[in-house]
C-alpha cells in the first residue's frame, strides 16, 4: 500500500514537473511536494532553484494572488442574445467537459466558459483559445443534463469574439436576420453599378460566334479585378488585424495566468497546425456529429480548389494572356469543376446533417444558416453560370452570373464579420494552442 501511494505521488509530481519548469522556472521547486523533492529537482533541471531562492522569488505556488473579476450583467445578456439563451441553466456539473473529445486535459472546456459567461467575464472569454478550439461537435449539448446547450453558448461567444475583433456594429448587423436585406444591398449595388457603368444592361456583349463570354460582360481588368481585389484586401486586412488582436489577448491572458510566452510564436507553429488541420482529425473526434468531418472537408477543399483556380486564371490571363472561357479539358477547368462539385456535395451534406442532428443538438442559428446559405447560392450560381453558358441561354446566363458575382462579393465583404471569419480565428487558436502546449495530446 505504502509503496503504491509513494509511486502515485511521484507520478503526479512528475507529471506536474515539466509544466512547472516550463512555465515558471523560479517557482518550480516551491510548488513541488517536499516529499518528492529530489526527483523533482533532477527532472525539472533547474540548477539554481534552491528552496531559499524560491521563497524570495516572485509569487509562486499557493501565493498566486486573487484576481479581481468584474462581472458584467450586460455581457451576460449579450451572450444570451447572441444565441446562448440557455446559458444560465448550467449548474456546473461538467458533463460537457467530460463529453468533449477535443478539449485539452488541463484546462478543459466548455464548463469553465459556461461559468465565465454566467458571470459576464468578458476579458476571460474573448481572449481564450478554447472558444475556438471548440469545433462545434455539440457532444456537450447532446449530453447536457440541464439542456444548457454548451455548444450553442460556445458558438454565441465565438460569434461575439468575431464582433469584438472586427467592427462590432457591422458584425452585429451581419448576425441579425433583420438586417439581411440591408446587408445584401451593398454587393448588389456595386455589381449593378459595374454593369451599368459598362453599359451592359442594354447592350449585352457577345464573344465570337455569338457565344456567351462572361469576361466580355464583366471586364476582368476594369471591373472584376478592382472590385474583388479591393474587398478581398479589406477583408484580409481586417481578418489579419482581428487575428492579431486575438493572438495578443490570448497571450496576455496566458502570461497573466503564469504561462510563459511561446518560443516560436505564430509563424513557427503555423505549418504543423495547417498540416494537422488538412486531415480534419479533430472533426473526426466528434461523437454526435462525426459525419460533419467529411462535409466540412469537402467544402474546405472546394474553397481551396476554387481559390487555386482563381489564382490560376489570373496566371493564364495576366501572364500568358490566354483569354477565358477556357476549354473543358483544360486542367484549370477540371480543377474548378471538381472543386465546385465537391463544394456542392459538401454543403448539401452539411444541410442534411443539420436536419438529422437537429433532434439532439438543435437546428443551428441564423449565424450558421447565413454561411450555409451564402455558400449554397455561391456554388449554385457558379455552376449555373457555367452550365447556362454552355447551353448558350443568355437570358438566364447573365442574370445568374451577376447573382454569382454578387454572392461572392457578399461573402468577401462580410467575411471578417460573419461565421466565415472562423477560418482565421480557429486557425489562430489552434496555432496558439500548439505554441503554448495547451492541448498536447488532443491531435
Amino acid at each position, binding site marked *: 500500500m505504502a509503496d503504491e501511494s509513494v509511486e502515485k505521488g511521484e507520478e503526479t509530481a512528475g507529471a506536474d514537473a515539466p509544466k512547472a519548469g516550463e512555465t515558471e522556472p523560479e517557482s518550480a521547486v516551491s510548488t513541488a511536494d517536499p516529499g518528492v523533492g529530489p526527483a523533482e529537482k533532477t527532472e525539472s533541471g533547474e540548477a539554481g532553484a534552491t528552496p531559499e531562492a524560491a521563497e524570495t522569488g516572485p509569487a509562486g505556488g499557493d501565493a498566486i494572488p*486573487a*484576481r*479581481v473579476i468584474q*462581472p458584467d*450583467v450586460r455581457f*451576460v445578456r449579450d451572450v444570451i442574445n447572441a444565441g446562448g439563451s440557455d446559458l*444560465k441553466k448550467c449548474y456546473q456539473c461538467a458533463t460537457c467537459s467530460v463529453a468533449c473529445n477535443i478539449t485539452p486535459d488541463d484546462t478543459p472546456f466548455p464548463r469553465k466558459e459556461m461559468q465565465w459567461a*454566467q458571470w*459576464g467575464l468578458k476579458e476571460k472569454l474573448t481572449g481564450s483559445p478554447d472558444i475556438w478550439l471548440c469545433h462545434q461537435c455539440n457532444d456537450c449539448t447532446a449530453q447536457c443534463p440541464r439542456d444548457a446547450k454548451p455548444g450553442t453558448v460556445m458558438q454565441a461567444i465565438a460569434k461575439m469574439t468575431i464582433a469584438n475583433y472586427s467592427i462590432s456594429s457591422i458584425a452585429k448587423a451581419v448576425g441579425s436576420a433583420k438586417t439581411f436585406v440591408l446587408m445584401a444591398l451593398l454587393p448588389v449595388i456595386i455589381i449593378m453599378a459595374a454593369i451599368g457603368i459598362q453599359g451592359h444592361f442594354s447592350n449585352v456583349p457577345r464573344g465570337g460566334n455569338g457565344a456567351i463570354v462572361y469576361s466580355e460582360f464583366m471586364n476582368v481588368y476594369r471591373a472584376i479585378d478592382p472590385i474583388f481585389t479591393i474587398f478581398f484586401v479589406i477583408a484580409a486586412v481586417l481578418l489579419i488585424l482581428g487575428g492579431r488582436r486575438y493572438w495578443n489577448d490570448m497571450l496576455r491572458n496566458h502570461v497573466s495566468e503564469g504561462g510563459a510566452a511561446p518560443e516560436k510564436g505564430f509563424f513557427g507553429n503555423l505549418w504543423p497546425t495547417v498540416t494537422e488541420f488538412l486531415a480534419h482529425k479533430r472533426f473526426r473526434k466528434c461523437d454526435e456529429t462525426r459525419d460533419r468531418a467529411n462535409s466540412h472537408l469537402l467544402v474546405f477543399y472546394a474553397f481551396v480548389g476554387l481559390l487555386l483556380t482563381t489564382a490560376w486564371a489570373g496566371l493564364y490571363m495576366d501572364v500568358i494572356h490566354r483569354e477565358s472561357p477556357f476549354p473543358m479539358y483544360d486542367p484549370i477547368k477540371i480543377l474548378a469543376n471538381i472543386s465546385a462539385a465537391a463544394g456542392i456535395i459538401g454543403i448539401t451534406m452539411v444541410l442534411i446533417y443539420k436536419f438529422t442532428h437537429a433532434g439532439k443538438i438543435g437546428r443551428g442559428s441564423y449565424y450558421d444558416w447565413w454561411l450555409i446559405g451564402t455558400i449554397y447560392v455561391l456554388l449554385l450560381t457558379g455552376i449555373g453560370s457555367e452550365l447556362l453558358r454552355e447551353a448558350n441561354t443568355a437570358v438566364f446566363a447573365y442574370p445568374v452570373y451577376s447573382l454569382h458575382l454578387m454572392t461572392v462579393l457578399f461573402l468577401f465583404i462580410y467575411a471578417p464579420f460573419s461565421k466565415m471569419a472562423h477560418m482565421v480565428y480557429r486557425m489562430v487558436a489552434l496555432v496558439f494552442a500548439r505554441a503554448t502546449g495547451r492541448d498536447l495530446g488532443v491531435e
Partner: protein
Amino acid sequence: MTVDKKIGVYICTDCGIGGALDTEALDNVAKNEYKADIVRRAPFLCSQEGTQQIKDDINNEGVNTIVVAACSARVNTDMFDFDPARYVTERVNLREHVVWTQSPAPVAVPEEAEKTAEEKAGEGEAAAESAPDTGGEAEMETEAQEEAPAEAAAPEEATAPAEAGPVVDENTQEMAEDHLRMGIVRAKASDPAEPQIEEINKTILVIGGGPTGLSSALEAANAGYEVVLIEKEAELGGWAKKMYRLLPDKAPFQESKKPDIESRIGAAMSHDKIRVITGGAIEKTAGEPGKYQVTVNSNGGAETLTIGAIVLAIGWKPYNANRLEHLGYGKFKNVVTNVEMEQIAAEGNGTVARPSDGKQATSVAFLQCAGQRDPEHLPYCSSVCCLTSLKQALYVTESNPEAAAYIVYKDMRTPGLYEEFYKAAQDNPGVMLTKGEVTSITEDESGNIILEIDNTILGEKVMVVADMLVLATGMVTNTIPAHIEGVTDLTPEYVGQWRETETVDGVIKEVIADPIVLNLAYRQGPELPYLKYGFPDSHFVCFPYETRRTGIYAAGTVRHPMTAMQSTNDGAGAALKAIQCLELAAQGMSVHPRAGDQSFPEINFTNCTQCRRCTVECPFGVLDEDEKGTPKTNTFRCRRCGTCMGACPQRIISFKNYSVEMIASQMKAIKVPEEDSKPRIIALICENDAYPALDIAGLNRLKISPFYRFITMRCLGGTNLVWIADALSAGIEGFLLIGCRFDDDYQCHFIKGSKAANERLGKVQETLGRLMLEAERVTQVELPLNEWDKLPGIMEEFAEKLKEFGPNPFKGF
C-alpha cells in the same frame, strides 16, 4: 381478576408447521404439562373456519385465554382479534420464528433431507460451504418451501408430508415446544385489560401564531375541535408577516409571492372555535393529556385553562450574527444578515439600499452557510437559506436590471420542488453563482465589501467588489433560550443546571431545565427534552411530530428548519396528531407506537423504596414524584413501553399483561436439557424492530440456531436484571438482547429504552461476577430492521462465543 382462566390452545398445522413439527407432541405439552382446557390442532387456522372454532369455544366452552400457536403476531391480526378487555390472546410464533428459521422438515428419505438442510443453510448464510448438487426431489421440495406465500400457503403443500408422518428434527421440535410453553405461561399470567376511561377535555392549545400555529389552529378548529391559540407578540403572523416576499408555495414554484398571511390571521381571528390570546405567555402546564391545566398570563391577567393536547409551534430565531465578526458582521456597515436584508427590501419596497449611505445597491454578494455547517456555529444546514438568498438576489436584479447578485455557496440546496425556484432564479442574467470558500472579507474606503474567494468553479482565486454583503445565517429553534450562544455545546436534553440527588440507591445526577415556554409541572423538567441542536423529537423519521412528552406535538421550525409552506403543512400534521392523541385517550388507549394499547403501569406502592429509578428513567416524563420520591403515575402521558418496569429493582411496576414475574415464569418454562450439545440461550427481542427482523429472516428462510428461545419485549427498556440472575442460575447459557440503535441516531421507538437496558447491563457485571460467570454471557446488540439479514450471523456468533465459554456450571443444579 375474579373470573377463572379457561385456556384454549390452538395449533395451526399449515404453512410448513405441520410438516416440520410433531404437532401431536405439542398438543401433549399443552394438555399434559399445562392442563389446558381445550387444545386443538387445525389446518389453516387463520381461515374463517379456524377462527370460528375459537369463537365457538369462547362462546360455548367459556374459553377466555387464547393461545394461538401459528404465525407471527404481526400478521393476521384481524383474524385473531378478540376483545382485549375480555380475553387474553397470546400469539406463539411457530411459523416465522421457529419453523421457517430452521432446516426444512426432513421428508421421506432422511439422506436427501440432510442435503436439503445443508442447502438451506448455505442459502441462508450465503456461505461458500453451500451444498453440492442435490437430488431433484430435494430441490423441488426446497422450491416449494420458498414459494409458499406467507399468508395463504396451499394446505396440500404442507399437509402432504404430515400425512406421510413427518420425520421431525429434534432441536426444532424442542424449540417449538419451549415457545409453546412460554406462550401458555405468558397467557396464564396475563389478565384482560381494564382500560382507564375518564372524561377528558378535547381543547387543543396551539402555542405560536406564525404560519405553523395558524395552520394547526385552523385545521383543528375546522375538524371541530375547540382551539386556544396563544401568541407572545401583540399580533399573529410571526416571521411570515415581516418578510418582503415569501418563497413560492404552489406550482410552478418559480416566483416568490407577497405574504398572504393576513387572510389566515383573519380566518383564525374570526373562527368561532378559535380563541386567540396575543401578548400571552404560559406560566404553568400541569397534568396530562386530556386533563392539562394550563395557566396563561396575558395583559397582566392570569387564567387557568383546561386543555386536552398541545401543539408547540414556537418557531425559530436567527442565529446570533454577532458571533460572525470574522465574516465582517458588526465590523462593516454594509455586511448584513439575510433577515436584515428582508427588512431592507421591505422598507425599500423591493429596492435594496445599502446601510452605509442609502445608495441603491448595484452589486450584492451573498455568502451562503454563514455560521452554518460549521462546527463552531450551527453544525447543521438550515435548508432554507439558499432559497432565501435566491429570493433576495432577485430583489436586487429585479429592482435594477443592471445590478448583479453574486452568490457564493458551499452547495446549493433547494429541496424538493424548490428546485424549480432555483432554476428560475438561475435563469436571471444578474444572478451569478459560484461554489467557493471566502478567504477574506474587507472593506474599501467607500464602504464596498471586497471578497476574496478561493476554490471557485471559476477556476481560480478571485476577488469581487460588491456594494454590500448578505450573510445567509441559519435558523435556531426557539426551544433554545435566547441567552444560549451556540448550539453545539448544549448539555444533553435540556438547557439548565446540573443537580445531584441522594437516594437510597445512590446519587442521581440530572439537569434541571431552565423554563422557556411550557413551564411543565413535570418531575423531569419544565420543557421538552431535546436531542441534537435543541430540536425536540421522539423519532425524527417515524414520529416527526411527537415529542418526548405525550400530548405535546412540535410543528414547524421548532423541530427543524423549514420554509413557511412546509411549516403550514407541518402545522396540519401536528394538529392531526393532537386530535389522534385525544381520541385515543378518551378510550383509555395509548398513542403510538403501541396505539390502542389499554394496559398501563400499575405500582404496588407498599414495596416502593423511593429509589426514583422509574421517575428518572421514564423516557416520557410520565411519573411525577412526591417529596420523598414516591412515584405518581399519569396514565395518559404513558406510552406503555415498560421502561419503568425494567428499572424497578423492587419489581413492583407491572401491566395487566406484562410484568417482571410473567417473563421470569416464561424463562422458567424453558426446559434445559442436561446434554452440553443442547445449550439454551434466551434472546430478548424488541417487538418493534427485532421481532419483525426475525420474521423477515424467517420469511427468507435464513437458518438460525435452534438453541435460542425468543421472549418478546415491548422495548428492551423493560429488561429487569432479576431475570438474568434467575435464568443463568437455572442453567441458561446466555442472554442476547436484540434491540434498536440508541444515542444520537437512535431508532428506539421509545427513545431511550434500548439505552436504558444497555446502562442496566453495565450493572449486571457484578451479578455475573458473583455467579463466577463471564460478563459476555449477557450481550446487547443494536439491530436496525433493515439489517435483518445479519441476524443469523449475530446469533450464530453469540452462540459460538458461549460454546467457547463452556457450559453454564449451574446447569443441572
